[in-house]
């Protein structure tokens, strides 16, 4: 009997149409848990470093996680893994919604795709019945539209569908996979799906998931419920509204956007507008939002509700996710929330990443204003009009071109980094907000922040929101507030962290960039990353865990809950070791693909005040803390400690240990 997991993966060879239900090795749960952990292991074993994103051998894995399908609150992520066309590294964007629970109830932990289909297809998984079906009639359809069409044609209102839109079909490097109220966006999973000619994956399941110790499990959940209720009634004092509660930032509920609109940078991550949030704006935005939001909605088995059902003027209903509400609007420098709602719907139908895409469009606008792109690039053809000159029109036009790879859109579709190099003529200088070729959040600040420095530089996700969260973003000015904050902080991995927080000041000696010290930063960042890695193996939403201050999920209850679900006898040290193993395997996988220390740095203008020496020291200290050598490669000793000698051997064989370092 397998507990918590189903013990089966679905292997689909798209070239031959062969479908297999494959039993997995029960030992893998002990070594990698599940979710991202076990997916990384599969990529390591089966995808050699020569394989490129659009090679048939690039595996595309849709994974549920260890706790999916159990009553564990907010366990609902689907993690999609593949070699990214944009970065060449292993990407693992995740989506919420309902898909992975359905997969688990259908009897599978993962769906693994290899090779390419000769024709457009969609996959229909209904318990033991799995079909590859013709999708030629769905080509060109929107990613949201496709979900409904498939549900209707199967006559399965409860089927969950993950689909790509035209952007995925056209292998746009920032193409997303859309599903229900969520999407798997970062890194171009939609493009890999499109390359394999999979339009959608639909799933419906009505089978059982077993808990090893159900009673204990439910006791833990009861405790968590108490805490959730407590937190709902007691938002954290002294923290901006959006981060004071639990769950992903409740962007659909809160109308106060002063913080985002004034702290984040507009346009191509250029300008902060510190006096944007006027009374007038506040009223008009509030009106638009309250009129458009028909209901707040959640993902599978989550007690919070950070999504919204939007019906805005003549735009057909759609479900809005999180920050997309603002990204296009800020990129286009349009002050009206109405624009945000209108363009988001079109972007979701195309199926594109709401973080990267607006920045690519804003980058194009900047190049045009600088004369690097010209009217020729913005001209019309017999298929489409020339680019309008107003801000809104321009963004819509550019989005249309990008999604269809038409004209200049064909170049922009590869993302800012690659587009800048193709365009040349100085365009490279406008690529000022990417890390490892991937567009970052639109933030530009003053003083270098050592914690963020490490997070931006070192995480395999290459996306800051997937790493930060448990430690407050800034020091509290008041000592009393700090004391109050640390008093009730059971989520901390260890008591001594409290002192770091108590001593941390917004200004002066004990402030950024020198405090927290490099050693302290290493501990804090490692803790936050560890929690993200546990979430990603269990597929618990970071909004209820690692991306949340004082969250319901933490290192002290996780081992108990996982043990009750699986029957494993895990303690904190044991759990840490498992996710550390997967984390190091992931890093080794990327190292094997050419990632190096030189890639590990935030954009040059991310902060105005930089400290090159201190920054190098931060990175070295962190590497050492993690058991990596000065090239950022896990040492043989570290790998041995994590039972990964086979990885050390491989790295050695490939000559990756250089300059006498091992």
């Amino acid at each position, binding site marked *: 009997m397998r507990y918590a997991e189903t013990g089966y993966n679905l292997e689909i060879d798209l070239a031959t149409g062969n479908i297999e239900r494959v039993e997995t090795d029960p030992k893998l749960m002990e070594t990698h848990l599940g979710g991202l952990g076990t997916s990384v292991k599969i990529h390591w074993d089966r995808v050699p470093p020569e394989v490129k994103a659009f090679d048939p051998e690039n595996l595309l894995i849709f994974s549920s996680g260890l706790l999916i399908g159990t009553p564990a609150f907010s366990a609902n992520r689907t993690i999609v893994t593949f070699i990214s066309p944009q970065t060449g590294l292993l990407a693992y964007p995740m989506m919420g919604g309902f898909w992975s629970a359905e997969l688990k109830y259908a009897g599978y932990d993962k769906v693994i795709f290899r090779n390419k289909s000769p024709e457009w297809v969609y996959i229909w998984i209904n318990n033991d019945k799995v079909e590859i079906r013709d999708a030629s009639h769905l080509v060109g359809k929107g990613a949201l539209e496709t979900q409904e069409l498939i549900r209707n044609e199967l006559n399965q209102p409860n089927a969950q569908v993950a689909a790509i839109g035209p952007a995925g079909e056209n292998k746009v490097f920032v193409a997303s996979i859309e599903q229900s*109220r969520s999407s798997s966006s970062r890194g171009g999973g939609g493009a890999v799906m499109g390359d394999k000619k999979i339009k959608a994956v639909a799933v419906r399941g009505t089978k059982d998931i077993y808990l090893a110790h159900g009673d204990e499990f*439910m006791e833990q959940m009861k405790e968590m419920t108490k805490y959730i209720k407590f937190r709902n009634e007691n938002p954290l004092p002294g923290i901006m509204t959006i981060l004071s509660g639990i769950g992903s930032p409740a962007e659909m509920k809160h109308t106060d956007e002063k913080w985002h609109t004034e702290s984040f940078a507009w346009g191509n991550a250029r300008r902060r507008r510190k006096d944007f949030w006027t009374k007038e704006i506040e009223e008009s935005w509030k009106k638009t939002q309250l009129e458009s939001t*028909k209901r707040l909605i959640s993902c599978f088995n989550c007690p919070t509700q950070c999504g919204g059902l939007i019906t805005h003027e003549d735009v057909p209903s759609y479900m809005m996710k999180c920050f997309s509400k603002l990204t296009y609007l800020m990129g286009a420098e349009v002050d009206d929330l109405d624009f945000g709602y209108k363009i988001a719907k079109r972007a979701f139908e195309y199926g594109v990443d709401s973080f990267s895409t607006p920045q690519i469009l804003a980058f194009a606008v900047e190049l045009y204003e600088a004369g690097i792109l010209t009217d020729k690039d913005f001209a019309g053809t017999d298929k489409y009009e020339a680019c309008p000159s107003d801000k809104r029109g321009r963004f819509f036009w550019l989005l249309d071109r990008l999604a269809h790879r038409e004209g200049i859109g064909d170049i922009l579709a590869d993302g800012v980094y690659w587009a800048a190099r193709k365009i040349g003529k100085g365009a490279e200088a406008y690529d000022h907000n990417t890390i490892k070729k991937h567009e970052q959040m639109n933030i530009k600040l003053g003083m270098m922040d050592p914690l963020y420095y490490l997070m931006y530089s070192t995480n395999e996700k290459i996306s800051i929101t997937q790493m930060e969260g448990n430690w407050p973003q800034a020091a509290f000015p008041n000592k009393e507030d700090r004391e109050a904050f640390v008093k009730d902080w059971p989520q901390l991995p260890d008591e001594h962290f409290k002192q770091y927080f108590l001593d941390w000041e917004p200004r002066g000696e004990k402030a950024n960039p020198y405090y927290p010290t490099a050693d302290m930063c290493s501990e804090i960042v490692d803790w936050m990353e560890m929690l993200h890695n546990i979430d990603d193996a269990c597929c618990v939403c970071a909004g209820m865990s690692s991306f949340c201050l004082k969250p319901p999920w933490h290192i002290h209850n996780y081992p108990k809950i996982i043990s009750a679900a699986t029957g494993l006898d895990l303690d904190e040290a044991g759990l840490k070791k498992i996710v550390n193993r997967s984390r190091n395997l992931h890093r080794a996988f990327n190292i094997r693909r050419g990632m190096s220390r030189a890639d590990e740095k935030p954009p040059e203008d991310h902060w105005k005040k930089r400290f090159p020496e201190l920054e190098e020291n931060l990175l070295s200290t962190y590497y050492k803390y993690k058991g990596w050598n000065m090239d950022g490669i896990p040492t043989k000793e570290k790998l041995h400690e994590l039972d990964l000698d086979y990885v050390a051997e491989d790295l050695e064989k490939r000559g990756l240990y250089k300059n006498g370092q091992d």
Partner: protein
Amino acid sequence: MAKIKKKIKTIKVDADKCNGCRTCEVVCSAFHSSPKWSVINPARSRIQIIRHPLKNIWLPVFAGEYAPAECMGRDKYIIDGKEYDECAFCRASCPSRDLFKEPDSGLPLKCDMCEDDPPREKPLCVEWCLNDVLIYEEREEEVEEGVEMEDVEAGLTSMVDKYGLEKVAETITRMSQKE
């Protein structure tokens, strides 16, 4: 017929507040597994959320009586401009649809208000819906004594409908001999 006092248990459904999380389905199925909490499968839940997100429809419906035959006349509601599925509000476990049936055996499911020993203060779905969609109320009423179809009988009736009385009787005899 004699009058008796009976506890009437009601769950008030504030459907406008439902955010579609399906926690109620998860918990109901877990509670009714044996041993309790060992098996999770929303398809076995006695509450089902009828969902049409883009139409703004999230409708929690509880499993009611077993119906051996489907209705000839069907209802279809439009409320506040939203058109609900045919039979959306009906609680019957009925041959016309998959709702409220054990997925493997097809046996009918029925909400038993989480009967338990000792009795619970609140049904499980009510307790676990943290959005106050499901509100539990109890009251006493005098009613005429009547015969209620118990779970076993409902199950047997559905088997009889499916396989015929003779077959079911034969099977039961054979099973009792084996015991």
